[in-house]
């Protein structure tokens, strides 16, 4: 049996007005007052300026120290490496994303219940440490580097990728523990934030150029599949669109809106 969906004869008003938001790649940018050449020059200039400003390699972290950030860059890239599938964490600006997230209420731990007393229990009962994400990073990266110095005589960032993977496995498997922070807890935090940074809207500083979405075949903020409910297994044909930058209230310093 096939059901009989009704396709509306015309797109709804919401769907129409919504198009105005979409930052399409082929959007018209010309103004009739400017010559084509002048327009092109102006476009190039703003593009270059924006590029320099947005270059993930030039990003100066606000939360992480330079050494912590160097760790983060290398660890994220091992978790989500560049390969034949596409860009890795570095190219996607994941470390920048994580640094920006640290400056939100989430980073400060305001989204978690962090009231004392703090106890220990089986893993099924969930996270029980007194720290928010900021503190988890701050209290763990340095001891990991110390561990690397003692074991390999070099900081994490300077190890071979094989050695870096070894350390990450030891964290994931809970072999390492740093004071009250089990390696596995830190690893989960790092893995979670890395994958978030690879696939969150570019607005938050990661998923640079929507590279994560392109790799997955995810069309981003399109959110309209009226004609694509069932195309018999064909791949969705349109590339991704991101959110316009003017939704700033929910931008990098997001989530204040829901807190009082």
């Amino acid at each position, binding site marked *: 049996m096939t059901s009989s*969906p009704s396709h509306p004869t015309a797109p709804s008003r919401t769907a129409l007005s919504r198009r105005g938001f979409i930052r399409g790649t082929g959007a018209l940018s010309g103004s009739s007052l400017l010559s084509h050449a002048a327009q092109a020059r102006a476009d190039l200039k703003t593009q270059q300026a924006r590029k320099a400003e947005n270059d993930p390699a030039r990003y100066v972290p606000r939360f992480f120290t330079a050494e912590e950030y160097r760790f983060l860059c290398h660890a994220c890239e091992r978790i*989500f490496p560049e390969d034949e599938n596409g860009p890795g964490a570095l190219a996607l600006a994941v470390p920048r994303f994580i640094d920006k997230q640290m400056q939100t209420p989430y980073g400060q731990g305001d989204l978690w219940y962090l009231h004392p007393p703090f106890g220990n229990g089986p893993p099924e009962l969930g996270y029980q440490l007194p720290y928010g994400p900021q503190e988890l990073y701050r209290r763990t990266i340095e001891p990991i580097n110390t561990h690397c110095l003692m074991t390999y005589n070099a900081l994490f960032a300077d190890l071979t990728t094989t050695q870096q993977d070894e350390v990450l496995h030891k964290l994931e498997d809970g072999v390492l523990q740093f004071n009250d922070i089990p390696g596995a807890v830190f690893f989960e935090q790092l893995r979670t934030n890395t994958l978030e940074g690879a696939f969150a809207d570019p607005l938050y500083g990661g998923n640079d150029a929507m590279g994560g979405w392109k790799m997955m075949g995810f069309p981003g903020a399109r*959110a309209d599949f009226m004609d694509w409910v069932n195309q018999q*297994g064909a791949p969705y044909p349109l590339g991704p669109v991101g959110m316009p930058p003017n939704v700033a209230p929910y931008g990098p310093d997001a989530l204040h809106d829901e807190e009082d």
Partner: protein
Amino acid sequence: MTDHVTPPKKPDVLIIGAGWAGSIMAKELTEAGLHVTMLERGHDHSTAVEGAYPESIDELRGAIRKRLFQKLARTSLTIRNHPTQTALPYRQLAAFLPGEGVGGAGLHWSGCHFRTTEDELRLRSVTQERYGRNFIPDGMFLQDYGVSYQELEPFFDKAEKVFGTAGEASSVRGQATGGGNIFAPDRSDHFPLPPLADTFSASLFRKAATEVGFHPYSMPAANASQPYTNPYGCQMGPCNFCGYCSGYDCYLYSKASPNVNILPALRQDKRFTLITQAQVLEILLDDDRKTATGVRYIDLTTQSEQTMQADLVILSAFQLHNVHLMLTSGIGQPYDPVTQTGVIGRNFTYQTITSSRVWLPKTHFTNQFVGAGGGGVAIDDINHPGLDRGKAGFIGGSPIWVNQAGTKPINAALSSGGKGAPRWGHAYKTAMIDQYRHSLSIDAHGSNMAYRDVYLDLDPTWRNAYGQPMLRMTFTWKENDIRMNQYAVQHIGQIAKAMGATKIALNSLQHGQNFDSRLYQTTHLNGGVIMGENPKTSAVNRYLQSWDVSNLFVIGSSAFPQGLGYNPTGLVAALAYWSAYHIRHTYLRNPGPMVTA
């Protein structure tokens, strides 16, 4: 604290919580001519503001940072698996996601909108009749609701019309339609809207399930398949399968929510007042402790404590908070698992769900981001009353379905790998992308029975931001439900093969496996203030009226004696309409207990 106390005018009715249950009660009781004030702890939410595109479809902000859910920093609960353990706080939202703010979880639910099977409402009686008393395991608190499917039918129907539910009837007034779920009980009317279209994944499941000999049907969905105006004059637009139901508010006015389907009508009624940022701490009682006089709450905008009086109090703060407020208010005897006496917190249940995965050939793209929250194709062959439980060896049942509701990439990436497969690195990345493009999931969404040592009470140690003891949950999986889940999952294997799977990962509960609060299951929590026919084993009567305090009605899945195979909200809404009907037609004419104990 006290510089802002303007005693408000006394309404006739106070409603605690502005979700589905509260909004339905508010609509019904204002229609009855009463002045109703609804108190909601969270902010107001409207499609035009919080639901506006594109902010509403931001995965990081939505399902990942959980902007619409309960603010744990203020109040949470503690969890343990067994009564001998020390329960620990639920510090990060994961297994279940209670709502907060106007609309409650009804704003960010998916929209799977079911009734019940005919048997589930009298499960104890049916089980005894068919399989004998001894078939009920020791320690299982199997009970009847005290209300029958036939009695609730008009209210299921009413809720579907208010929600604009899309589906296909099987039998209407005794006439078979030739479609729909052949196991579904008779209905007084069709669904108000035709079923949603099948996604590619759902269409494969429909075909394969038929080939294997099962009976697939379109899942009833409160996602509008066409433009719709409900009986309250509230309008819905057609769903475009954007995939942002679960965890989000629908930007297209297509998913039913209290905000879209009830409140627009209610807000125009002068008898109705909504107070947001009002955290209710206690239901106040008269000296005789048999009459509620009103509530005590904190106005979060001024941090000042207020009291408000009313003749009738409706507690509809969601299952967990209904139980919590009954306990903090000292209404009804708290359940004690040792003596097995008391009722508040008794029969706490959940949903026994596992997801299995099916990979298709690389030529097939499942486009998992396409979907509607309530849409899909299901079979009831392991859930319907006719299944021989004596042979199968369990009580309960489990629908099986492909409910491709829109999987976004962060969630897809986080949940990929594990169970022996890498969770990071190159091999993970390759497998994860392949899984996103070419696989689909099939869920076994089963019932969950009630047990002597599974319950809710107050935690002795941890407190919420208002200084109250938090709720304590004692919960784990039990043999009967694990057997039921495993039985259902076996059948998924058959269907997956018929779908032409290149790889199948069946996932079922394992004996001895504890409930894991770190993994999302569902927010289908039930019981703790259950309805029934005996005040020794239930907290509210069949009209959801407190046995102890007759001007208090407790509405929500807290009333379910055990968990359903289906999702709960269809029954929550029907019970709210049922209760409201009897308040309007019986209670208001003659206030007092509607059932003599």
